[in-house]
């Protein structure tokens, strides 16, 4: 049973560029959430996608956008990258039937 898969694992981008991160949910899960984790802090909620729509959004600027595809996989896009966007980006999947969230291994983004 495949868990949550994220790609790429590491990424280095230049300030001002755009980046796309990808996530495939755990088999049987239909909901995908994205989190940003700065060094030494707990993850912060970015947004959640369900039925291909953004269901809830955290306190992040519009530079952060996402998408969910019919197969439940998801993308996180960040435009006009800032140095402060350097972080570990975590994807979590879940289902309406409950039993909690499953996280992927994350994508470590470095903006230089």
């Amino acid at each position, binding site marked *: 049973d495949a868990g949550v898969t994220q790609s790429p694992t590491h990424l280095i981008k230049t300030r001002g560029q755009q980046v796309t991160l990808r996530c495939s949910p755990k088999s049987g899960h239909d909901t995908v959430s994205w989190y940003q984790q700065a060094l030494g802090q*707990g993850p*912060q909620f970015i947004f959640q996608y369900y039925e291909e729509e953004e269901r809830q959004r955290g306190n992040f600027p519009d530079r952060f956008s996402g998408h969910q595809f019919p197969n439940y996989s998801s993308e996180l896009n960040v435009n006009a990258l800032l140095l402060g966007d350097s972080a570990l980006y975590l994807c979590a999947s879940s289902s309406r039937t409950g039993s*909690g969230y499953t*996280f992927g291994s994350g994508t470590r983004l470095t903006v230089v």
Partner: protein
Amino acid sequence: GIQVEQSPPDLILQEGANSTLRCNFSDSVNNLQWFHQNPWGQLINLFYIPSGTKQNGRLSATTVATERYSLLYISSSQTTDSGVYFCPYDSSYKLIFGSGTRLLVRP
């Protein structure tokens, strides 16, 4: 907003020692999970424990939802237990994380 307080913030153990990690919440909890974040960053689900007590090997967890707290017991700690432990609050469509408990188990 919801507050998640984790204690202790940092913990250093000698291999083989036991420990208790605690999470306090500012509101009644539901759908509580305990996670272990390994040195590579992955959040690994330890327990899904909305209430009551569960045990899995050397680990056990207790949640008292109405008292707004949860405990994680680690017995006979091993170096592989090192990392950061989180117990986020499930607020409908999002998890609210505290700062975590950073555990270092020395050989």
